[in-house]
């Protein structure tokens, strides 16, 4: 039985954040049914589209983040077909000249990096929303015309794992750029999946099947696996895969036939005559590049290479831009990045998780955070003390520096420590006797010292000096 290699391509539709829609001024956002409307959205006779600058700006930003070649002149095309959620009877999209082409992202799967190439990313508009009831459907046009950025990958992924890694990387780019909230449960990010199978010994791709409109990443994983299995079964039984479009039946966990190649719709793409070519100025691109934050991938590399932070910790820190920004702000005040990372990843996130809170609930100023870390790095407080300070500050919502001051400095003066040790020796003559008799009481004596100083002595120094003093006995 031959082995099959699956190939997957993904088309991701992401709703962009903006105040108004892509080709009209009506609101892009929450609203009462059929209220975020302009005559343009309904496709009444005589209306004309006017392109939204912010949608273009965000699209260019995403295209740059995807390492695409940017188009010199922006143009749009019509995709013509009839469907009740498409008021004009055509969608304004980009067919001939997508805003960005030949890009890539780097994904990480099980520790190894892979480049996933992107065919193009193009700007278009979303359709209206339909509610399907028993015998009728209801149409709400609030969504009609919202800017949608579609990113088409090359068919170069070979497992559902790669596909999900790609989707998460892509989604995070949108979040980092604040280009979209990309909430799958609100339909803001939707995926069309293309799957084909080829035998190991074949050198060309198999026939691809498209599964449309998947609304969650978990479902994407399911669909890929189900479809691979379906195609495998057909091929193994000697059958042939037909090029077709399918949809996913979530209840029965199967992909279902929608239309075949013969019924494939000819969209009759042609240039949108109401939107002239728009030259993208260097000025515009310069400003966009200037405003672009460093992305997840670059930040991870920096944390690993420059700060010596572990891969896993770097991934954790950069998963959410808010956290990464906070981290970078903190270390900008001069504290040790690795120490900072340790306290964040090793303690802070756990604390937040346990208390069901989010990063935005943290009320600690970056400089204060940095100062407290410095206290630990300088040996003035111990790691345990650090954690206690944080806990108290977060629990009681009190200023961390004040709490740090109250907790007091760690005792790291050698003379002072020696004095304390001598005091402990004097106060505990029986234990000293035990020691002289060969009993292993060093740990116990350490405990006494800690108790006496409420844990404030620097542990490693104390250990060293204690050993010296014990020698002298």
């Amino acid at each position, binding site marked *: 039985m031959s082995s099959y290699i699956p190939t997957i391509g993904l088309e991701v539709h992401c709703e962009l954040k903006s*105040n108004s829609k892509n080709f009209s001024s009506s609101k892009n956002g929450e609203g009462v049914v059929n209220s975020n409307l302009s005559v343009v959205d309904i496709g009444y006779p005589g209306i004309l589209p006017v392109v939204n600058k912010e949608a273009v700006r965000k699209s260019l930003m995403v295209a740059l983040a995807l390492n695409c070649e940017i188009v010199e002149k922006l143009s749009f095309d019509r995709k013509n077909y009839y469907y009740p959620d498409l008021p004009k009877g055509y969608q304004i999209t980009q067919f001939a000249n997508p805003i960005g082409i030949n890009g890539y992202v780097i994904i990480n799967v099980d520790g190894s990096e892979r480049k996933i190439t992107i065919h193009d990313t193009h700007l278009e508009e979303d359709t209206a929303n339909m509610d399907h009831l028993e015998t009728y459907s209801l149409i709400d046009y609030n969504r009609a015309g919202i800017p949608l950025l579609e990113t088409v990958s090359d068919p170069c992924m070979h497992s559902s794992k790669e596909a999900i890694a790609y989707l998460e990387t892509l989604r995070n780019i949108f979040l980092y750029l604040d280009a979209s909230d990309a909430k799958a449960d609100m339909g803001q990010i939707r995926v069309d999946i293309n799957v084909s199978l080829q035998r190991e010994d074949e050198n060309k791709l198999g026939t691809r099947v498209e599964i449309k409109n998947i609304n969650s990443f978990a479902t994407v994983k399911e669909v890929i696996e189900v479809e691979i299995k379906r195609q495998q079964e057909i091929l193994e039984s000697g059958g042939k895969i037909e090029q077709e479009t399918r949809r996913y039946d979530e209840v029965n966990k199967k992909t279902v036939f929608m239309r075949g190649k013969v019924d494939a719709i000819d969209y009759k793409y042609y240039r949108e005559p109401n939107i002239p070519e728009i030259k993208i100025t260097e000025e515009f691109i310069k400003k966009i590049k200037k405003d672009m934050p460093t992305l997840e991938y670059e930040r991870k590399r920096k944390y690993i290479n420059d700060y010596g932070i572990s891969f896993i910790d770097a991934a954790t820190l950069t998963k959410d831009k808010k956290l990464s920004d906070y981290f970078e702000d903190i270390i900008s005040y001069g504290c040790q990045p690795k120490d900072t990372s340790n306290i964040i990843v090793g303690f802070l996130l756990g604390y937040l998780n346990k208390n069901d809170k989010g990063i935005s609930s943290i009320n600690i100023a970056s400089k204060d955070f940095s100062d407290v870390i410095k206290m630990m790095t300088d040996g003035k407080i111990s790691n345990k003390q650090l954690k206690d300070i944080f806990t108290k500050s977060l629990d009681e919502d009190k200023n961390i520096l004040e709490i740090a001051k109250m907790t007091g400095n760690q005792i790291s003066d050698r003379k002072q420590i020696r004095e304390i040790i001598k005091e402990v020796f004097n106060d505990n003559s029986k234990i000293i006797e035990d020691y002289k008799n060969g009993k292993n009481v060093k740990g116990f004596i350490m405990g006494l010292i800690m108790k006496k100083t409420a844990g404030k002595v620097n542990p490693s120094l104390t250990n060293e000096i204690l050993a010296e003093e014990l020698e002298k006995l």
Partner: protein
Amino acid sequence: MITKDILKKLASNLMFEMEEEEYDTLEKEFAIFLKQMDLIAHIKDVDGVEPMTFPFELDINDHFLRSDVANNEINFDDMKVNVKDYEENKIKVPKVVE
């Protein structure tokens, strides 16, 4: 070669039906039209130029794009006058099967 079946399929994809006699008229029109277009295909220089989609260059750049300011113009109450069937402030149609 244009056949009536091709014309019928085109009409069907355009979401309408035509009378039988109209297809006869249409066939004749197509014959003339395609003959004319065939002559065009042989015109000197035709291959060497880009198709024209705008009457002239408008020379616009991103400064001319619309500022992202939200402004709702109409709501369902306004739409009602032209809507035949609605419920809960949404347009009602027979159930759409994907």
